[in-house]
């Protein structure tokens, strides 16, 4: 395994309960510097809950999270963002009635310089729109006719593009993507995969949740397999096949019985 690399993001013994449901059940988590870590698991396995705990969207009941070795206690997504962790949530977290640029800068709006900005709090709309446009173009994610278009007038895939672009554009530390290609077409998915490779090339680690095994096996350095609220195995695309990964994920195969590499092609 990638033992020579530095651990960026780590969790130990995380627990989150919703009433009788235990969404996260004493799980561990490790993310190494500069890697793409895929998280796979059945529906309801607790993948989204895990990354929500890592991005401040939920506060775990138990357990520890460290970032660069320092313990952190996120109370809101704002706290995670302040440390450069950007997340594409499964529900996208966009505001339909606001336009594309507004959405990209939501919660981190820029104000115009001078007294207009400091006293009258005037937004630098033009600056934000230009930058949003530039970022979208740079990522090759969207061809924008009108950056002032409300997000609700976009298709599901286009909205996903906006959410992905927002995360990729502002991340300085970690990028988390919860099923970023779920609504995307073939070409669009390809762009997101390329984007993930670009982000890794910049040296930022990526956490990718996906049900699409070919995608996972193509871009991931390591694969974290989640089952019934916890991590049950870590495999690598070059030591395990998709079928094995799926078998572990669904419980058909016990990872303990089959040490890494046993089924390597």
């Amino acid at each position, binding site marked *: 395994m990638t033992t020579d690399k530095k651990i960026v993001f780590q969790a130990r013994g995380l627990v989150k309960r919703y009433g009788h449901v235990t969404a996260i059940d004493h799980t561990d988590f490790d993310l190494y510097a500069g890697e793409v870590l895929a998280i796979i698991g059945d529906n309801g396995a607790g993948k989204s809950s895990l990354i929500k705990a890592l991005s401040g*969207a939920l506060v775990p009941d138990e357990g520890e999270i460290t970032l660069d070795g320092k313990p952190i206690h996120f109370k*809101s*997504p*704002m706290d995670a*963002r302040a440390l450069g962790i950007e*997340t594409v*949530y499964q*529900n*996208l*977290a*966009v*505001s*339909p*009635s*606001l336009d594309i640029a*507004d*959405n990209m800068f*939501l*919660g*981190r*709006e820029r*104000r115009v310089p001078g007294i207009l900005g400091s006293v*009258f*709090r*005037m*937004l630098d*709309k033009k600056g934000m729109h230009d930058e949003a446009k530039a970022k979208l173009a740079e990522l090759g*994610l*969207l*061809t*924008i*006719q*009108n950056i002032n*278009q*409300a997000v609700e*007038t*976009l*298709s599901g*895939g*286009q909205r996903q*593009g906006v959410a992905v672009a927002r995360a990729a554009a502002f991340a300085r530390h970690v990028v988390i993507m919860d099923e970023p290609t779920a609504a995307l*077409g*073939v*070409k*669009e998915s*390809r*762009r997101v995969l390329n984007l993930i490779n670009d982000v890794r090339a910049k040296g930022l680690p990526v956490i990718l949740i996906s049900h699409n*095994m*070919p*995608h996972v*096996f*193509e871009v991931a350095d390591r694969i974290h397999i989640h089952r019934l609220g916890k991590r049950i195995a870590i495999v690598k*695309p*070059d030591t395990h*096949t*998709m*079928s*094995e990964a799926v078998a572990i994920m669904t419980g058909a195969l016990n990872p303990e019985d089959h040490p890494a590499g046993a*089924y390597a*092609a």
Partner: protein
Amino acid sequence: MTTPQNAKVQTADHEKVANAAGGDFATFQGAQVSLADRLHQFFHQYPVAAPTIVLLAAIALFSSIIGGRFLDPFNLSLILQQVTIIGVLGIAQTLIILTAGIDLSVGAVMVLTSVIMGRMAVEVGLPSGLALCIGLIAGGVTGWINGLLVTRFRLPPFIVTLGTWNIFFALNLWYSQSETIRSQEIEAAAPLLHWTGTAIDIFGARLTYGSLLMLGLFVVIWYALKWTAWGKHVYATGDDPDSAKLAGIRTERVLMSVYVVAGVLCAIAAWVLIGRIGSVSPQAGMMANLDSITAVVIGGTSLFGGRGSIFGTLMGALVVGVFRNGLALAGVDVLWQEFTVGALIIVAVGVDQWIRKV
């Protein structure tokens, strides 16, 4: 078993086909759009457009039926005076409704704070500026109470403000001892409270400072909604609070600020009320609640939150004012005025449903 390498080959294959098809992904150009679609898009993008058209149509209608008497500058400025209180309350109501809430307590807060201003100045004998400030603060406190119940205790705004409506109204009756403070007493002790009723005459029109204050407030809140981060956060919170929270907005704080601002606006409406009727009466403004909601709804702001414009509410208030005034001048019975306003509300909500569809 499929090997990973194998999978990659397959992936690449079907992607090649897609890429070969060429063309840019996600171009935002619609193909052929029908006139109805384009209208729909227009109204969707500019929520103030629909009520403005209705207002212009109403003005055209009444000037053709009644003629000069309706279009007389004095009459038009009278309409503006008549809608001033509802206009100010409507600003407060718009902010709340934009967050997908509703405020049934605006009328009660207005009356309560008017009584506080009046009694502080006349009975306690405080300087009128101070009495006014105390009233404004009291308005903010009522908003804070509403906001606290909505955010901290997670009660639905409808229920919260239904409760506080009764509570504030009871407090008002208790504090005022159900007594009216007469206009002469106010004039003698606190002329500042009458300032909003003072008028300037230009070109035969009679503009009160209260009306100008209302227009100023519309501009200020329009600016805050359109040009500040706070405004974006108000829309985002009303649109989808969970998404807004994930996007890093402290929705609770946004809601709280909206309720406090609304409370202060209700107190400003109280000041306008005193200027308009001269006296301070614990029974004034009984219908103000529903009228403010009417103005917002006719103004095209969606009761589901996140959609609407502040100037729409001004148009909505003016539409109601123009219909009431025009029908009265035409000699139509009051009951048909109410009938018309009722019909307008239903049409406005119907139009909103259509516009909200994307």
